[in-house]
C-alpha cells in the first residue's frame, strides 16, 4: 500500500479495501475476488446456508442439523470474505470462502444451486491461480460454465422448441419476481409480463423460438469468446456476458442467487480494467478526490481544463484517457478512467447487491454504462506521443506546473497536427 495514503491510520481498512496489489495475483483477479466476497456478504448469503439434511458428503452426516453448525460455517465464511476484502492472505481466504459455499452445497441434497457452485468454483480457482501460467484457470471456468449451459439447452427438445422459455415466462408473469436482496420475491415482474403477453410467445411461437436460440447460441459463443485470444473475442466476451447477465436479471426480476453477480464480475477476466490511466483535460479539483479514492495511483491527471483554456479553446472541451493500449476520448474517457478505480467497482457492487436494488436501477446502470462507452472514440497505440505518466498522481500544486509544461507541448503538437490536416 502506498505510504502516501491520505487515510488516517485508524481507517487502515479503507486503503486496504481499495488496494489491488498482490505478489502473485493480477490486479483484476484480486478485484474479481473482492467483488465476489462483497456480493456474498451484501446479499446475505451467509444466512442462506441450508440445514444438514441428506448430505451429499457422508462426512457431513454427523453434523447437527440445527443452527449451531450453520452459525459456525457462516462465521468462517464472513471472516474469509473480510480477509479477501482487505487483501489479507487473499488466495487462502478465497479457498476458505469457496469451501464454505461448497459445504453449503453438499450439506443438503434438496438445496443444490448452480449459481452458488459457480461462485464457489470461481473463488477456488482464483485461490489456486496466481503465477502467470495459472491465470487462465478462472477464465476457463467461466468458459466451461457457458459451454455446459449451452450444450445442456441444445440437447433439450423443450429448449430447442421454445417451450421451456415461453412456459417459464408465463410462470414468472404469474408468480412475480424471483429472489432478490431486500425481500422483493413475488413483486410484479413487468418484463416477464410484457414478454409473455407479446404476440408470438405461445408454446411454439416465433418469439419464444428466437429467444431460446438466442440464449443457446449466445452461451456457446460466450464459451468460445472467453477461451479465444484476440481483441474481438475479448470484447465480445465482455459485451456478451454483460448483456446476458443484465437480461437475466431483468427477465427473472432478480440475480438468481449469486449467478448474475458472479457473471458480471467475471467479465473482468475478458477485458481487465486499464492498470493505469492518464486523464488529460479533466478539472484539476478531481485530484483531491483521487487522493482519497485512488490509493494506488491508477489514475493520474494531466493538464487541467483551466490551464488548457488559456491556450486554445478547442483543447478545452476535449478529455482524453491515455492507457497502455491507446487513447480514449469523449465520455468513453471518463468511463475508462472510472473503471480503472477499484472504488468505482465496489460502489457499483454496493448499488446492485444491497436491498435497494431494483430492475430499474440495474437497467439504468447498464444503459448509462453502454451510453458512456459508445460516446467517444478510441485510437489504439497512440500513447507514445505523451510523456510517461508519474507513478503517483501529482499533488494539486504540481498539477498546475506540470500542466503548463505539458500544455505547451500538447498545444504545439495539436496545432501542428491541425496545420498538417
Amino acid at each position, binding site marked *: 500500500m502506498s505510504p502516501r495514503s491520505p487515510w488516517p491510520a485508524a481507517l487502515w481498512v479503507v486503503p486496504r479495501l481499495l488496494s489491488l496489489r498482490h505478489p502473485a495475483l493480477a490486479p483484476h483477479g484480486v478485484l474479481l475476488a473482492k467483488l465476489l466476497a462483497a456480493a456474498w456478504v451484501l446479499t446475505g448469503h451467509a444466512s442462506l446456508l*441450508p*440445514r444438514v*439434511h*441428506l448430505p*451429499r458428503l457422508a462426512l457431513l452426516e454427523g453434523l447437527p442439523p440445527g443452527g449451531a453448525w450453520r452459525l459456525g460455517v457462516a462465521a468462517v465464511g464472513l471472516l474469509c470474505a473480510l480477509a479477501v476484502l482487505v487483501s489479507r492472505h487473499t488466495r487462502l481466504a478465497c479457498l476458505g470462502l469457496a469451501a464454505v459455499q461448497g459445504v453449503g452445497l453438499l450439506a*443438503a*441434497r*434438496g*438445496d*443444490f*444451486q*448452480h*449459481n452458488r*457452485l459457480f461462485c464457489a*468454483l470461481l473463488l*477456488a*480457482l482464483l485461490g*489456486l*491461480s*496466481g*503465477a502467470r*501460467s*495459472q491465470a487462465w*484457470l478462472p477464465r*476457463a*471456468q467461466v468458459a*466451461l*460454465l457457458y*459451454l*455446459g*449451459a449451452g*450444450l*445442456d*439447452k441444445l440437447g*433439450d427438445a*423443450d429448449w430447442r422448441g421454445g*417451450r*421451456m422459455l*415461453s*412456459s*417459464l415466462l*408465463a*410462470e414468472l408473469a*404469474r*408468480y412475480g419476481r*424471483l*429472489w432478490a436482496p431486500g425481500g422483493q*420475491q413475488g413483486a410484479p415482474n413487468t418484463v416477464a409480463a410484457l414478454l409473455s403477453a407479446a404476440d408470438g410467445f405461445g*408454446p411454439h411461437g416465433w418469439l419464444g423460438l428466437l429467444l431460446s436460440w438466442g440464449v443457446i447460441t449466445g452461451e456457446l459463443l460466450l464459451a468460445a469468446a472467453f477461451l479465444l485470444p484476440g481483441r474481438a473475442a475479448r470484447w465480445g466476451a465482455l459485451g456478451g456476458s454483460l448483456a446476458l447477465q443484465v437480461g437475466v436479471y431483468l427477465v427473472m426480476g432478480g440475480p*438468481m442467487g449469486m*449467478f448474475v453477480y458472479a457473471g458480471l464480475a467475471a467479465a473482468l477476466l475478458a477485458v481487465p480494467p486499464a492498470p493505469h490511466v492518464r486523464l488529460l483535460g479533466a478539472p484539476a479539483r478531481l485530484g483531491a478526490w483521487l487522493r482519497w479514492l485512488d490509493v494506488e495511483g491508477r489514475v493520474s491527471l494531466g493538464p487541467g481544463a483551466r490551464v488548457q483554456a488559456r491556450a486554445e479553446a478547442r483543447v478545452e472541451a476535449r478529455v482524453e484517457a491515455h492507457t497502455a493500449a491507446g487513447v480514449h476520448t469523449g465520455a468513453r474517457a471518463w468511463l475508462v478512467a472510472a473503471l480503472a478505480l477499484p472504488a468505482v467497482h465496489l460502489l457499483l457492487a454496493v448499488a446492485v447487491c444491497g436491498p435497494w436494488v431494483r430492475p430499474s436501477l440495474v437497467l439504468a446502470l447498464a444503459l448509462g454504462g453502454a451510453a458512456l462507452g459508445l460516446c467517444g472514440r478510441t485510437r489504439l497505440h497512440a500513447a507514445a506521443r505523451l510523456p510517461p505518466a508519474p507513478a503517483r498522481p501529482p499533488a494539486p500544486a504540481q498539477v498546475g506546473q506540470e500542466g503548463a509544461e505539458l500544455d505547451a507541448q500538447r498545444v504545439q503538437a495539436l496545432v501542428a497536427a491541425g496545420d498538417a490536416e
Partner: protein
Amino acid sequence: MRPPRWAERAGRAARAALGAGLLLWQGASVLGVPGLSTPLLAWGPLHEQVRYRVEVELPGGRLTPDAVAQRYGLSRRFTDARGEDWELNRLSDVLEGIALYERTRGAGDGARVRVRFRRNGGAEELWQWPAPGEDAR
C-alpha cells in the same frame, strides 16, 4: 522468510494440477464421460422449470406441506398460493432425495409418496414411492 525455489515451484505445480483437475472433471461431466462425470458438475442451470406437489401418506395420516418439506429437506423457495412448489433446477434432484430418504431414514415408516408435476408447462405426470407394484418397505 522466503521459501526455497524448489518449494515455490512444487507449490505452483500442485496448484496448477489441482485447478486443471477441477476443470477437467467438469469438462468430463459436461461431455458425459462414463466413470468420470457427475451430474453436480454437468452445468445445467435453468434446464427445466417444474411445478410440483408432494403428497405423503403415513399410517397415521397425510403430512402437511410444511411437514413434507421438513421430511425431505426441500427448500420451498417458490411456493404459490395453491401450495404448489416450483423448481428451477432438475426435478430429478428432488425425486432422488425423496427416494434416498425413504430407502434410508424413513425405511420403516411405511410411507406412500406421490409427486404430481408439470414439466415446462406440459401435461401432469405422476411419480410414486414405492413404485407401482412394489410394497412400501
